[in-house]
């Protein structure tokens, strides 16, 4: 049972790694993804251009690969930021109960903010691009992470060993760092993986709305967006990058729930039921 589960997780992780490796290596072999070639604009997929070319004549396969770098990189970056911030807030809100109530009120208000609008406002304030997307998505995801982590921390603080640390004379911040944080980490890691799936989706949405990374840099999301214009004649321009996002997110979700089965016995039952 456990063996099969681990094997599955390995396969999923392997696939994720493979895609990542592919987008890391491929751009070295492929033509410049940003070099326009107006003569060859809007070609359909062929042997020479496996995914065709876009309106500037840029090779879409090369763009797909370099977009992968950016999309995966952004996803990682966003995940790290949102998870770090969310975990910190969750830890503090869960451990310091009185401050926690206040913090959670703020988090509630935070969640009530329509997220896309928030992203737009950020894109406008900071200018569209990496930074604004990072900020916006971090801000969108932080409260969710904070909530999950907090409920976990609330569970942990009732554990006697947290109290025991106090009896042993340990200060609250040190207790947080030494006893609470390490025991939240597995969950935080799982949360990270699930969050990265969400981040990739929202990264797609933002790029799609033109609020993401600036041109000519490609991302899978803005490739879908760019292909939209030619949906009728060149549906593959939308199909390929979108499918990649779907696949990647699917794998991330699988990895997330797979990891969770290692951490959370209840999730293990769910996995067994699905198996």
């Amino acid at each position, binding site marked *: 049972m456990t063996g099969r589960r681990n094997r599955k997780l390995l396969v999923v992780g392997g696939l994720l790694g493979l895609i990542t490796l592919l987008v890391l290596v491929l751009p070295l072999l492929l033509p410049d993804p940003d070099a326009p070639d107006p003569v060859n604009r809007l070609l359909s997929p062929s042997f020479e251009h496996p995914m065709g070319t876009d309106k500037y004549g840029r090779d879409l396969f090369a763009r797909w690969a370099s977009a992968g770098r950016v999309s995966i990189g952004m996803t990682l970056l966003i995940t790290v930021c949102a998870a770090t911030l969310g975990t910190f807030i969750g830890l503090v809100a869960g451990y310091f109960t009185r401050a926690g109530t206040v913090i959670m009120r703020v988090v509630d208000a935070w969640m009530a903010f329509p997220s896309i609008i928030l992203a737009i406002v950020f894109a406008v304030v900071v200018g569209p691009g990496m930074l604004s997307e990072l900020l916006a998505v971090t801000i969108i995801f932080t409260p969710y992470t904070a909530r999950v982590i907090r409920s976990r921390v609330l569970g942990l603080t009732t*554990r*006697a*060993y947290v109290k025991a640390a106090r009896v*042993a*004379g*340990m200060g609250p911040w040190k207790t947080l760092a030494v006893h609470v944080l390490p025991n939240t980490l597995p969950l935080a890691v799982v949360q990270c993986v699930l969050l990265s799936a969400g981040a990739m989706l929202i990264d797609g949405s933002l790029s799609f709305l033109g609020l993401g990374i600036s041109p000519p840099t490609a991302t899978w999301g803005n490739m879908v967006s760019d292909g939209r214009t030619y949906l009728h004649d060149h549906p593959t321009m939308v199909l390929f990058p979108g499918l990649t996002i779907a696949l990647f997110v699917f794998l991330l979700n699988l990895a997330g729930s797979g990891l969770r089965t290692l951490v959370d016995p209840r999730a293990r039952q769910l996995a067994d039921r699905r198996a």
Partner: protein
Amino acid sequence: MSLLEIDRLSVGVPGDGTDTELVHELTLGLDSGQTLCVVGESGSGKTVTALSVIRLLEFVTPVRTTGEVRLDDVDLTGLNPNVMRTYRGHRIGMVFQEAMDSLNPAQRVGVQLVEAYASGRRDKRAQARALDLLREVGFTDPERVADLYPHQMSGGMQQRVMIAMALMAGPDLLLADEPTTALDVTTQAEILRLFRDVQREHRMACVFITHDMGVAAEIADRIAVMYAGRLVEVGPAAEILASPRHRYTRALVECVPQVGVRRTGGLPSIPGSVPAATEVLPGCRFAPRCAESSDRCHTEEPPLIALDNGVEAACWSPGSGPVALPDPRVLHSDTPKYALGQPETHARAAETLLEIKDVRRTFLTRGKGGSPFRRRARMNAVDGVSLDIRPGEFFGLVGESGSGKTTLGQLVAALDDPTEGTIVAAGQRHTARGLEGDARAFRRAVQLVFQDPQSSLDPRHTIGRIVAEPLRELTDLRGADLRRRVEQLLDEVGLPKTIADRLPSQISGGQRQRVAIARALAPRPKLIVADEPTSALDVSVQGQVMNLLLDLRREHGLGFLFITHNLSLILSVADRVGVMKDGRLIEVGTPDRIAAAPEHEYTRTLLAANPGIVPAAGSHE
């Protein structure tokens, strides 16, 4: 022909690679109208056996069962699931330990009762029967009770409903898995009485699972003792209690604390702990812990053989005759080895170690459940308690669940601030505004041992690191000195040095509690608050841990605030005992006085309800 015949039943669950055998070749019989008590320490396979009889285990985990379970000569193990379902409830009823969890929280108990009757047809007959049974299990207003939800009832009420539910379809056999373990002694006494009455009334056979010999003594006709998945001894209750044969049974009987028996010198215990189901032992599974084991015990597994007086036991060197239970009447004059019970003899007699004055702790409760619709109410968990503890004194605090013992303990350990009143511990004042003065000095002086050894140790820290933690925080010891002190502490609580590198999950429950104690000892405290430090442990291990605490007290002159709900235990070891009820300290006195002449009505109830093995007349020469 017996009603229930279990024949060479083995239950295995698939593990990594091989099956783990949870129950091995168990053979038992039960006549109708009889009560069989199955006793044994945690993990000995009692629940697995019961669930295998009613075939509920297969819903939880894939199981491989061999052998037969016959009810009226029908082999249940071979029935197809649909036929088996008709046996459940109608032929075999079952009552579970956690009544609260065992009831559907979202249905009125009336509905749940009706569902148990004839496949849940909601006809008048079912309802009438439900009300009848509710009345029978002691509710004077069954109509109202039937309309309640489980969470609106106390634990005792829930357990009664569970019993009524098991009776709805009129089964011939009732399985009860520790139905009273989660309850207060007083409530437990009521439920046990109810059980006896109901069983007699309905002429049912009953399998009653417990780990408490005292409980078994109260209601069993026959007793079966299980150890590590094996049946080690079975026979008439009186025989087993009066003259246990298997060495394990004898040790178990000996471990049961008794009211009025002073044992400040040490409690009986069984060394070591129950082997895990996966552990391979060629011989008697009890042999490693057995004081009387011979070579044969370690190499060859003893079969269950019939001995005299209808007792069967699986032991190569069975004992005989009564276990040497100390006689309460005699042992009143028992003098402890060290006269710490008499503070006058102590140098620091005049000063007090702990002074609690009119302490009150009020909680704003928000009701149960995770919903926002909770009404706030004030509840005084500790309601004006005053108490002094002298240096080196062992003070026992007893009371029913929810009486505020833990809350008081937390106040003393300054994990919580009193709403009113002052606590002075080791010269440090503690009031509603928090600790006054040097918090580190306070922590050095007052330490706490928690109930659950499992959760009081950080699962990610090694034992060494756990024990070193207070040393790092509260003392200046570092480096080699620190390591030496940790080793010394481990040694002091009787643990090998090598354990320092292990994780809590890699040691047994009893060892974990020792580690927790070593940690509490680390800063050389003057007062240790011990909140039910043994109640999560088996009786045998409980003795080990108690003995350790008593030894430490003797060696270091430690003061103890020892919290427990086990009256017999505390009466046998404490210098003074306080009884709490509803947040108040209703009675304080020496164990002798409390045992002999309880002043408060409630104390009397507690004493009366305390299950115990009353040495049978004549079994004591």
